[in-house]
């Protein structure tokens, strides 16, 4: 299939093309389409851009390696969000464990870190230029992970309740209730912003 035609195909058609004919260009188009939404989703969940990039790359590598495990009954976006979400959750737990066992956990100042400062290109600093965005991002990090994921998928990624239910593997009712609780937690955390 010609490259021009590939650009017009839907996500599901592209992954089928990649499955059946091993067309790498189809995969590259999928990467182009999903790299930014996934980066935004994973970054808002983890709050660390470097870790987020690793997770998103790992998600695409999984798509590349296990392309045959995708079944056409599901939407491609749901599938890739599920992969990225699982990887993000695993990374979040790993980081929490590492933090628990690290020397920082025993220090007086819990926010103190021993990371070597990285002066390289940091899009998170560019995008979170506004103080408000930074405050909101910090507040999101304080919301319980189960609620945080739902709020990000709904209010930041603008996905439907059904899609979120499919991605997370829980019922629509539970999704709605978790979104509600997450929003309530966020509102409590951001009350100072609303006063202003």
């Amino acid at each position: 299939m010609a490259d021009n035609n590939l650009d017009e195909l839907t996500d599901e058609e592209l992954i089928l093309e990649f499955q059946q004919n091993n067309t790498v260009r189809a995969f590259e188009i999928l990467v182009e389409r999903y790299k930014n939404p996934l980066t935004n989703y994973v970054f808002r969940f983890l709050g660390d851009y470097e870790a987020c990039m690793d997770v998103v790359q790992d998600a695409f590598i999984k798509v590349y390696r296990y392309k045959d495990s995708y079944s056409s009954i599901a939407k491609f976006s749901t599938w890739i969000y599920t992969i990225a979400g699982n990887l993000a959750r695993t990374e979040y737990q790993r980081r929490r464990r590492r933090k628990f066992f690290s020397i920082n956990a025993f220090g007086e100042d819990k926010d103190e870190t021993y990371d070597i400062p990285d002066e390289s290109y940091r899009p998170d600093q560019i995008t979170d230029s506004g103080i408000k965005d930074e405050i909101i991002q910090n507040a999101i990090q304080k919301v319980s992970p189960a609620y945080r994921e739902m709020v990000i998928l709904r209010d930041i990624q603008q996905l439907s309740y059904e899609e979120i239910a499919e991605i997370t593997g829980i019922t629509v009712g539970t999704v709605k209730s978790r979104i509600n609780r997450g929003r309530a937690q966020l509102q409590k955390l951001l009350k100072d912003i609303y006063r202003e």
Partner: protein
Amino acid sequence: MNPNDDMKYQDVVNNLKQMQQVKAPSGFEADLMRRINSGRYPAENSYRRKIFLPYRLIPSAALALTAILLIFVLNNNGTTQDNPLLQAPREREDSATKTKTALVSSEGQSVSKDELSTSREISGGQKIADNLRQDKPAGNSAPNKENFSPTVKGNISPAGNSDRFITANFTSNRITDYPVSKAGLNFRQINLSTEQKVQLSRLKERLELMFNERSKQ
């Protein structure tokens, strides 16, 4: 979820929607394709490896260690071995009674274990008495011989309401006429060898000779 909830959290929703999109770096595709082509995939953890990862083992290892420590501590407290020399000897049930009451099975009917042991005692007692009579020196005839000769007086009477059993009471008047109670005696049972038995019977003979001589005097 109420339809009013969206309105309730309108500020939060709006703020989240207005947040700037975080984008992937420009060289994202190139890095990704490089990783794919170089085969530097994230190592897939096998099921077995996932289970036996050290951090997963920490809670179970701690639990096992605690259990082992508890077992050791409790065992050390519980296993204070009593010195057998300081313990009171175990009282034998069969020797604690003043008179022995034996239940002997009658007329070839099925005999229980207790019944058998009791009948053995009776026959054993008679046997000892017979032996003592035989062991007595032939030429040693004394006027009050009967006072010192070992005798076993048997008193057999029907027992209770059952005609299957008979009660046998045995008392010895060999040396003393008063009944000897073994209750409260501190003794232990020793299985004698044949040599020891022979030695014991000799001692008994000597003792009897001594008694005979004293009585003559």
